[in-house]
């Protein structure tokens, strides 16, 4: 118990606060900045050890396409973990949905229902139903989520394998469907050739020579960066107009500039290859949506409150049962989307699709700074955590590190990130 500070005159208090807020803005965001800096350091490390392969446009596209399903599912997992639960079934659900989609499109001859778009929508709905079925027991019967979703993990892996008729795979999937993972957005503006490709003696162009930019990607990227800067400035203005200090101006400028520069660099990289991967666009939209929901919407606030103190949330009029159910429905839909992305990338459904990915997803969320006790965690953190995992996978593969040792390194990084968190918290 601390003794109370004697009341100070109001004017003094306000003046004293200014410098303290500046410092606290830096320290409270240190975790987020630290994480992004860690990602950059890791990327530079692999850029160096792979002799520049990591940042090659084709590799960046691969990296995104290989890891997007982890990040998509991490968005759902973040809400699950912030709520104070866990979901071990996401990998199996993804595998099952992939098998379901492949069967609908290739085996079952459903006529118009075999259309990839229809199949995708049906699969997302099925994912939501799976989430609801699991969430129902967790929310309304208070069965521990660990147990319910452990059961789900076994059940849906089993159904996935049964749907695929034992050990075989189902494919090939239609090209339209594969666009979800391996497609690039069409260049409606048209390419801009800066350096014409070299033509060799046989009259053939040399792969990778010259520089042609995918202009639609460039334009989209510029719009996104400008929008980011615009909204940042607008929020600042609004705070100032209401008489509240925002973060210090230099910090704001540096943050915005660094983020924009990074984004533009990546945009340029993608534009110089085949443009923006479709799956990156899907991911970007989802990430923006989840940032908005968690930071600005009442339902997001309620989820954090429930994870922080479920009893207090309940006594504040929050229907924690329904909220839990919704968190798991969301997780189910995103697991289904993850399953579709995996199937689209492989071009077929395989029994092992998504196997073990629940652990990568959970690790991404914890590396991103979420608390296992619930109530703490950020969408951006989980996304960066996912990318850290992805870059390590990709970089170590290029370096030729054995898969066994890759797991050891990933395990150590997870442990280190969480120890860093706990240490920081105790120090504060």
């Amino acid at each position: 118990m601390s003794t109370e500070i004697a009341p100070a005159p109001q004017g003094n208090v306000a003046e004293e606060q200014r410098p303290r807020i500046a410092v606290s803005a830096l320290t409270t965001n240190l975790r987020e900045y630290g994480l992004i800096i860690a990602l950059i350091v890791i990327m530079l490390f692999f850029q160096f050890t792979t002799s520049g392969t990591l940042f090659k446009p084709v590799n960046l596209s691969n990296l995104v396409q290989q890891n997007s399903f982890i990040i998509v599912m991490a968005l759902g997992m973040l809400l699950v973990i912030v709520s104070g639960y866990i979901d071990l079934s996401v990998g199996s659900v993804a595998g099952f949905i992939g098998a379901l989609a492949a069967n609908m499109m290739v085996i079952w001859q459903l006529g118009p229902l075999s259309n990839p778009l229809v199949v995708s929508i049906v699969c997302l709905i099925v994912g939501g139903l799976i989430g609801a079925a699991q969430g129902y027991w967790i929310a309304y019967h208070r069965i521990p989520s660990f147990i319910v979703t452990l059961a789900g993990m076994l059940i849906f892996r089993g159904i996935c394998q049964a749907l695929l008729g034992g050990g075989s795979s189902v494919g090939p999937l239609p090209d339209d469907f594969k666009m979800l993972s391996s497609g690039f957005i069409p260049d409606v503006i048209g390419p801009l050739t800066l350096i014409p490709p070299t033509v060799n003696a046989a009259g053939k162009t040399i792969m990778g020579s010259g520089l042609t930019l995918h202009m639609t990607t460039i334009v989209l990227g510029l719009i996104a960066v400008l929008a980011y800067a615009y909204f940042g400035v607008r929020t600042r203005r609004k705070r100032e107009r209401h008489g509240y200090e925002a973060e210090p101006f230099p910090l704001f400028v540096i943050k915005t500039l660094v983020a924009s520069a990074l984004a533009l660099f990546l945009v340029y990289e993608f534009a110089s290859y085949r443009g923006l991967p479709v799956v990156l666009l899907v991911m970007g939209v989802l990430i923006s949506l989840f940032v908005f929901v968690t930071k600005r919407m009442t339902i997001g606030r309620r989820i954090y409150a429930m994870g922080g103190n479920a009893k207090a949330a309940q006594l504040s009029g929050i229907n924690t049962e329904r909220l839990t159910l919704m968190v798991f429905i969301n997780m189910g839909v995103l697991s289904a989307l993850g399953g579709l992305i995996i199937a689209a990338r492989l071009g077929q459904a395989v029994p092992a699709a998504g196997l073990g990915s629940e652990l990568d997803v959970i690790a991404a969320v914890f590396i991103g700074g979420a608390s296992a006790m619930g109530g703490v965690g950020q969408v951006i953190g989980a996304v960066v955590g996912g990318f850290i995992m992805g870059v390590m996978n990709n970089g170590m593969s290029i370096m030729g590190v054995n898969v066994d040792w890759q797991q050891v390194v990933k395990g150590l990084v997870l442990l280190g990130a969480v120890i860093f968190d706990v240490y920081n918290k105790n120090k504060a």
Partner: protein
Amino acid sequence: MASTILEMRDITKTFPGVKALSNVNLSVEEGEIHAVVGENGAGKSTLMKVLSGVYPTGTYDGQIIFQGQECHFKGIHDSEHKGIVIIHQELALVPMLSIAENIFLGNEHARYGVIDWNANEARTSALLKKVGLKEDPKTLITNIGVGKQQLVEIAKALSKEVKLLILDEPTASLSEKDSQALLDLLLEFKRQGMTSILISHKLNEVNRVADKVTVIRDGRTIETLAKKDISEDRIITSMVGRSLDDRYPPREPDIGEVVFEVRNWSVYHPLHADRQVIKGIDINVRKGEVVGIAGLMGAGRTEFAMSIFGRSYGRRITGEVLLKGKPIDVSSVSRAVEHGIAYVTEDRKTYGLNLIDHIKHNITLANLGGVSRHSVIDDMRELAVANDYRKKTNIRASSVYQMTGNLSGGNQQKVVLSKWLFADPEVLILDEPTRGIDVGAKYEIYTIIARLAAEGKAIVVISSEMPELLGITDRIYVMNEGRMVGEMPAAEASQEKIMRAIVRGEGKAA
């Protein structure tokens, strides 16, 4: 008369900001039952924690002399070694272990870590016989009632060769019949020569078994009464005898028509389906009125309030809640809040706050609709609201972005209050609004209550501190064992009158 077995001299114990005990003296003679009585928060439990080494030597001033030797207990192990065993109000048994396992927990008959079950169970049977409990030593604790669990605790104490048995409110959660049996057992132990200290505020029990009574008030020993001087009147006067000074802000009540009414409210225990916790209660509160509910811990006041507030406690709830004469639906917290009812919990850390989030988010949680449009939160409006309430309730923090977990108790309480004020209720139920906070913060809370009443809210204050109720309310209900056993205007009420209503209510229940 026998010799003195225990003497505590000039015990002083301070917590940061609070003097819990100041120069307390207690002298217990061998073979007697010595009762220690006092109001909630008077310092009885603190004194016993000093004695049993929960607060180790060096953290308090004064001397403990047990069996002629001065003792410096570093922990509960030291005091148990000497034969001083305390049985706490909240039983410390492991529910999923058997009686025998619990009795010898940490003290098993074992060789090289291998437990000799036969020896344990044989000893347990003997101990259970001593306390008159007819149960198989292998029975799980969870399968026996609270009364029997209390006996297991006593058997556990006996297994440690106890010389001085301390019972802290042993009958608080027992039925009348179990309480009688327990008191008989104490008398039986006395015949066998054991010394006991009984902490209780049930004066009829004290009257029945105690040889001496020491009264503690505000962390001081008031007096020790010998058997011939013990009477309920005498004890009550001694327990509450202090003057009411201006620790309460002045207010001029402006009381209107009845706003809130509860009729024939009954609630059953959530786990024990046949135990009725609230027994047909009627209360009403008028506009601008502050109504108090007095009673001892365990009287059912919190259960009553929580069952009204969205059925947050209990099962088989029956009765009617009326707002301005019309029945309202309070079957969920959100509906209760919609109808303008707010409940400020007695346990702010467990039920009131998200301790890992900051003040701003905590204040708006019960009324997010008030700071959002189409479910999108307006950050600026939320910040304005939080700053506004921070000023209104005088929350002392570096900013509204301070974690509530890092605030002092008084400031935490102000955050919880702010949360409910922002929900703009008509009826505000405050459960122990000043528990565990210092005198200055208490005054601020009283001021807020007075202001709310002046604004025309109907306010219910549940409190175990009688002076507080007398100081801030207009009318007082007295509750005991799930019933309303008295109602009086605060102007005519006194601590004696309230105590008497409780004590008599207890007689009625028997």
